[in-house]
């Protein structure tokens, strides 16, 4: 296989072990043969239980870790290529779970400028990018605020601004919404969808929230260091019992329609969207009502 630039992420037979001293289970394979491709412009959710290998996988994508065997290509670049390490990290921008551990500037503007400054850009270009990034995440009014006083959700917006100021090809979010309240989560999800649709940025969103995963174009489920399922949300979430075995949930709407189908109700499979489910239930119930009048 030859890595093509059409795929922003491509992994071939990737394995990873933390070695004798690191990781939850010393010596065990955290990743066990991951081969997948993510095309430019995709919006992918990566789900899996604790210890399934999600975070390890994310860290391989921007060369924080290197595979024990196999190869990771980011925009066609082998992450083992030390010469191009910074290119890999620029293309694959990473946002972590805890906003407090990734803020370094004394003002929002300074924090966002950290990345582009380190790319060696002209100061004027850095300023332009910072302004632009803050505008895109809706935080331009807070440019002079001290970031540590912002709410958790806003801190995450600042973190994302810091990444997009580096003009990445792919945004990797490692449970970046896990500690946020529902409104803040929704704001982040809206921003991600906008960046994805309007600017074509590839998004890889690692999450425990199945409602969020249902909003992606594609859901990858990891279990015990392998890819267990990979497909459209409607396909993946129709495998309810398998997902439960792996310690995962399915979105409530999917669970409802799956259980009603189990009761013999005439509903389409793969329902995820609330309005679509309401329409399907309405049709089904109106059908039975119709039967009343014809008897």
């Amino acid at each position, binding site marked *: 296989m030859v890595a093509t630039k059409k795929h922003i992420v491509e992994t071939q037979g990737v394995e990873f072990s933390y070695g004798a001293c690191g990781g939850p289970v010393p010596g065990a394979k955290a990743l066990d043969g991951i081969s997948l491709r993510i095309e430019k412009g995709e919006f992918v959710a990566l789900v899996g239980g604790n210890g399934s290998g999600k975070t390890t996988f994310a860290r391989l994508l921007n060369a924080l870790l290197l595979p024990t065997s196999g190869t990771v290509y980011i925009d066609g670049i082998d992450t083992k290529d030390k010469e191009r390490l910074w290119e890999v990290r620029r293309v694959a921008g990473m946002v972590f779970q805890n906003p407090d551990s990734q803020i370094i500037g004394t003002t929002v503007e300074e924090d966002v400028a950290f990345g582009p400054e380190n790319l060696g850009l002209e100061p004027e270009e850095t300023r332009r990018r910072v302004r632009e990034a803050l505008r895109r995440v809706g935080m331009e009014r807070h440019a002079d605020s001290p970031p540590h006083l912002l709410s958790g959700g806003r801190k995450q917006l600042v973190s994302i601004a810091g990444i997009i100021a580096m003009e990445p090809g792919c945004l990797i979010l490692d449970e970046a919404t896990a500690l946020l309240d529902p409104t803040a989560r929704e704001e982040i999800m809206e921003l991600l969808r906008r960046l994805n649709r309007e600017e074509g940025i590839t998004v890889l969103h690692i999450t*425990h929230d199945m409602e969020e995963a249902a909003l992606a174009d594609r859901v990858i489920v990891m279990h015990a260091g392998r890819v267990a399922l990979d497909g459209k949300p409607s396909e993946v979430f129709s495998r309810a019992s398998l997902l439960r075995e792996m310690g995962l949930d399915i979105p409530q709407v999917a669970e409802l329609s799956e259980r009603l189908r189990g009761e013999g109700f005439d509903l389409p499979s793969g329902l995820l969207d609330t*309005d679509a489910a309401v329409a399907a239930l309405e049709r089904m*119930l*109106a059908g039975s009502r119709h039967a*009343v009048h014809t008897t």
Partner: protein
Amino acid sequence: MLSIRLENLSHTYQRGTPVEKTALHNITLLIEPGMFLGIAGRSGSGKTTLLQHLNGLLKPTSGCITFNGSPMDGHGMRDLRRRVGLVFQHPENQLFEETVCRDIAFGLSGTGLSPAEIDIRVRGALEAVGLGETFLNRSPFELSGGEKRRVAIAGVIVTDPSVLVLDEPTAGLDPRGRRELLDHIVALRRERGMTVVLATHDMEQMARHAEQVMVLENGSSALFGTARDVFRDVGTLERVGLEAPRITILMSKLKKVFPEIDDGIVTVDAAVEELKRLHRRQGLRWRDHDERCARGSVCCREFGSPPVGPQDEDPDGDGIYDACISC
């Protein structure tokens, strides 16, 4: 048994300074023994401040809080903290001992319990959070995130509190971890008759377990009532930045077409039952071709759809209405 009463309780941080901030405003609330109370609200709405009053970590700047009718000063603070166990956000950060056993036992130091009694209590607490004895001699630092959190919670329940207060106990856990942790808390409450006060952003969790829910908005109580009543108020929830469980939203949309749907559905289980009931009813035929009900009344003709009410069910299961509500 301990009942906690909050009356017009307010709390202002840094009072009298330029940065003073009122985090709680006139909260009145009775926490009765055995209750499962949920506290919901956005980040910064005052949930943590409220919880920290419940074991005397914070004192109200106005209003009052009483424990079994007496103000906090009547009880020793030490005694109160044993009776009200508070599990902080990210409690795993508080683990410090060399072994799980010693970490859990820390809360019992100075109680005068014999080593044998302490041993029994520690094992009981560990079991209550679903961890086996094999954990006793492990280092808390080599455990997974979910296991660490359970050990930290065991360190609070080992003192056998009457009231267990949990601040976002499942934040950051995976779905199985969340479910299991909550199941253990529910079982503890059942077995020991413990009162549980749970602050969370997870509305589905709240809907499944809490009997009463208080929704905070900027330090004030925006909604208070049973989970059914609170989640039915989708508008207020949205205003305060929360979202009713997806299933509640779905059922309230469906109710616009089928008004007979119960409007307090907050769990998938309840929705499945309700839709099965509705479907069964929709599919029922009238006993007579002229759409008379079994009692022979013509009133049934008036209904374009099957009538609503307890009598229109189909007790003999023959798919035929026996009577409508008007008869």
